[in-house]
């Protein structure tokens, strides 16, 4: 399964990540959630935690500090108040 979705991670000062990924996991304020292609559109606020993306079989983590996520079947946009990149695990 190599279907990808477009993922944007945007911090107030800059766009931290933009690109095609296989999946996104994010800490929603009412529970963590994972997104693959074709997810039902929804919008949620985020709490502090880790946003991880899988691309090319590798996982990349970003620590975020609050924000919100906007999910459509083909695209995920995370607006975070503050982002810190963690070394690719």
């Amino acid at each position, binding site marked *: 399964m190599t279907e990808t979705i477009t993922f*944007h991670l*945007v*911090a*107030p*000062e*800059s*766009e931290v990540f933009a690109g095609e990924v296989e999946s996104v996991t994010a800490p*929603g*304020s*009412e529970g963590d959630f994972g997104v693959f292609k074709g997810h*039902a*559109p*929804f*919008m*949620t*606020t985020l709490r502090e935690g880790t946003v991880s993306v899988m691309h090319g079989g590798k996982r990349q983590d970003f620590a975020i500090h609050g924000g*919100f996520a*906007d999910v*459509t079947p083909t695209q995920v*946009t995370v*607006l975070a*108040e*503050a982002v810190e990149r963690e070394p690719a695990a």
Partner: protein
Amino acid sequence: MASLKEMRSRIGSVKATQKITKAMQMVAAAKLKRAQNAAESARPYAERMANVIANLAQGVAGSDSAPALLVGRQQVNAHLVVVATADRGLCGGFNTSIVRKAREQIKSIEEQGKTVRILCVGKKGYDQLRRQHGSKIVDTFDLSAAKRLSLQDAQPIADRILDLFDKGDVDAVSLIHAQFKSVISQVPTAKSLIPADLTGAGDLDMAGAAYEYEPEEGEILETLLPRNLSTQILSALLENAAGEQGARMQAMDSATRNAGDMINDLTLQYNRTRQAQITKELIEIISGAEAL
């Protein structure tokens, strides 16, 4: 006619001034580049934020529960004008034009019989408004200490505005800043912060889709709107910073050119005077020799 020595020192001082303005111009050019980058990289966040809010706003528009931050209060008695200027001068008409716009705005609000309160961001705006509108200024923010503007710098300003709004001291808020059109053009603009101005939001590809909200739409809006306020302030401040450097670069460029013209004029005058003096001395010697 000034003596030769006086003229020499005059030329020297103009040359020294020219060196300073030239240096300032180059510093401004370097800072402009950085400020412009910062303003541009902050744009995606602000745009997406505006889009999301516009989308949410459609859902709650018209209902009684629409938050006051979004639609404003029905009875507007006091209007808060946030004037964002630079902290430093020597940047041409940059600060003056923002303050002029602010004065117009203040006047037109007062003509409607409403009270005006002013919040100054940046020292120069405060200096210029203090004399005429001193009693209306509720607070001033000085951002000259911040090297790189971030959301942390905009947050206290947003908090103060929200505080005033929640207490009912003000019912509407607008922000005046310079819009960065290009390096040579900064347009002072007034923007409404409360009620939120959503005209800038782009077309929504998500319109009509059955969206799920977590938590409820209203709750999301309640957390988003204050955040939108600080985001808007941040982007205004970043545009201001870029505009300030652009204006300074221009002002210093023309100052450098002026100094160059002045040096040319003075040098010409200096040479003429010197020549005239030599000629005079020669005539004196010759006529002295003839008399013998």
